[in-house]
């Protein structure tokens, strides 16, 4: 794209339909993941319940506005239920089992089972205080928000399309991922189809005999499909290596693994508030650099082609940028108003500085800036 230089081609590029934010198309899955990880990273700095609820509402709104009709698009509801479960478990564990965060405002006194003195920090029953319950709720809500942000990415982006974007150096992983992602759902669909066919013929679909009877057609279908997929992948150059030197392979693998470990350590240092200096940004930067070098070196060794690659155009930049902006604003907030990001007194109304609202609302922009998914727009009679 950078090679286009004359004025006329630049004009053509600016008119590329991929840059339109209203033309219905599927957004690049990487953009949704950057957006979601940005929101999750922001939430990792907040135990302010209002801030977390804001982020939850933002994620839910964007999912409702921009999800497709694909099966995975309905995943967000499941993540919301998981979030509720997390909050309930957190409250029960912390209020009933932990002696930590116990204040003085008692809700109820349960009968207490005495534990040996070795069980420091543990109790069974006893006093349940408002402080313990509200602290547990805030922390559970934070974890739930992070999980729901990731759930939003799952609902909005197709995992198969994301795997297709894997760089060439990781193609073994990509092949395994594509095969798994394609076959698990198809296997289930096959099994359901065969079982309903059995039941239509008057058999009980759940007995051991029925399982034995349906195993054969299901496996047969899976084998047929795997042969088809293998042929399709073969025709696109999967499995063909252009550079076959052992040293290059080892160097690539070392660079990528070292880079991924560096990225993990750096992300942990950055997201966890452990705050030891060497583990934060420097490690992340080093890891990213290593990984990029490894991917570039490794990418040269495969020569596969892509079938209709997803473009990365203006809407992708806007969506990814909104997630990054939300994360940056919330990190700034945690730095400037630590008392608002992590409310010190659980029983007081948490502070809400305007920056918190701005940070969360930047995250809602993809609901308007991302192009609508094609299968939603067809209903209204607009062209695809």
């Amino acid at each position: 794209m950078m090679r286009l230089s004359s004025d006329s081609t630049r004009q053509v590029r600016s008119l590329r339909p991929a840059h339109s934010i209203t033309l219905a198309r599927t957004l690049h899955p990487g953009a949704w993941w950057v957006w979601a990880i940005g929101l999750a990273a922001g939430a990792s700095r907040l135990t302010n319940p209002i801030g977390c609820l804001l982020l939850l509402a933002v994620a839910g709104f964007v999912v409702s506005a921009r999800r497709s009709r694909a099966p995975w698009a309905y995943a967000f509801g499941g993540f919301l239920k998981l979030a509720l479960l997390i909050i309930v478990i957190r409250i029960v564990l912390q209020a009933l089992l932990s002696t930590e965060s116990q204040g003085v405002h008692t809700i109820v006194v349960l009968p207490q089972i005495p534990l040996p003195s070795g069980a420091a920090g543990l109790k069974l029953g006893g006093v349940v205080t408002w402080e313990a319950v509200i602290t547990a709720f805030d922390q559970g809500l934070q974890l739930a928000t992070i999980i729901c942000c990731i759930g939003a990415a799952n609902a909005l982006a197709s995992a198969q399309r994301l795997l297709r974007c894997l760089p060439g150096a990781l193609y073994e992983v990509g092949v395994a991922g594509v095969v798994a992602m394609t076959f698990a759902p198809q296997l289930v669909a096959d099994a359901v189809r065969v079982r309903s066919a059995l039941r239509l013929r008057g058999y009980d679909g759940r007995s051991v005999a029925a399982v034995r009877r349906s195993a054969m057609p299901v496996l047969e279908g899976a084998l047929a499909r795997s042969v088809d997929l293998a042929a399709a992948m073969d025709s696109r150059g999967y499995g063909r290596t252009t550079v076959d030197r052992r040293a290059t392979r080892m160097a690539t693998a070392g660079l990528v693994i070292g880079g991924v470990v560096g990225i993990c350590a750096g992300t942990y240092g950055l997201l966890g508030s452990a705050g030891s200096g060497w583990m934060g940004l420097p490690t992340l930067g080093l890891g990213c650099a290593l990984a990029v070098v490894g991917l570039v070196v490794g990418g040269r060794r495969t020569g596969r082609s892509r079938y209709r690659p997803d473009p990365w155009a203006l809407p992708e930049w806007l969506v990814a940028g909104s997630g990054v902006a939300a994360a940056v604003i919330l990190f700034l907030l945690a730095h400037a108003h630590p008392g608002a990001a992590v409310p010190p007194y659980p029983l007081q109304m948490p502070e809400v500085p305007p920056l918190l609202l701005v940070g969360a609302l930047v995250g809602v922009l993809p609901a308007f800036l991302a192009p609508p998914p094609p299968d939603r727009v067809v209903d209204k009679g607009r062209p695809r």
Partner: protein
Amino acid sequence: MASPRLALAVVATAVGFLACTATAPATAAATAVPHIQAQPAQVAAGPIDGVRPLTGVSYSYWGFYQWDRAKHAWQFSPVGANDKQTATATTGAVYGFRWALVVKTPRPPRAPGDFAAICGGTKAPAGKKRIAFVIDFGTATDSPSSQRPPAPRGVCAVVPSSATAQQALDTVASLRTNSSALICGIDGYPSSGCGQKIANATPPPPDGRVQLQLAGNGPSTDSGSSSLPWVIVAVVVIAALGAGAWLLRARRA
């Protein structure tokens, strides 16, 4: 302690970024603080016997002390302020809290734990106990930021006989604790953070004696957050987004 967590983070990221981001904040809180008040084992290896300064790292934190009436001196508490053991204290116990930069020796409150002076004028009904607290906010050199330490104060808590030291203190001062119930701030001092790690700190000058302020029994009012309008705006925004999501879902389902 860090390496299993790191390994956990590596494994989790291999599974997916989900697990990595989900566990990091939950586990990170535990590493954020030098475990001084809450864990007896670490206290024993801490500033008292001078093990920690060998590493060149010092901490400033709220130290928890108990007044030893026989020796007429402060003793670094072997247990945390929220430990069940402190609940067995009866009327007459004196606890000290001192914010200090600890390099080699423990730095107890700079005023003696005079129970009669602090709790002498207070009566306790049956079933309750009187606990005296000496809260010493330290000197300006101990301060982690530009925040000026308030004057040291003595206060008497009248609490149920089963209350721990931390619960008793909670009734007479506003406590800011972290997720492990470690005391990070008392009466808004310091206003943020939870203990501070300082590399290669120079030992502070020896402490003199100070006079306690005994007036004003009750938590100081530091809740000056006047952001209620923004809270209302935030709640309205949450409601609007939630309703919008619901409507879009209903329209498109």
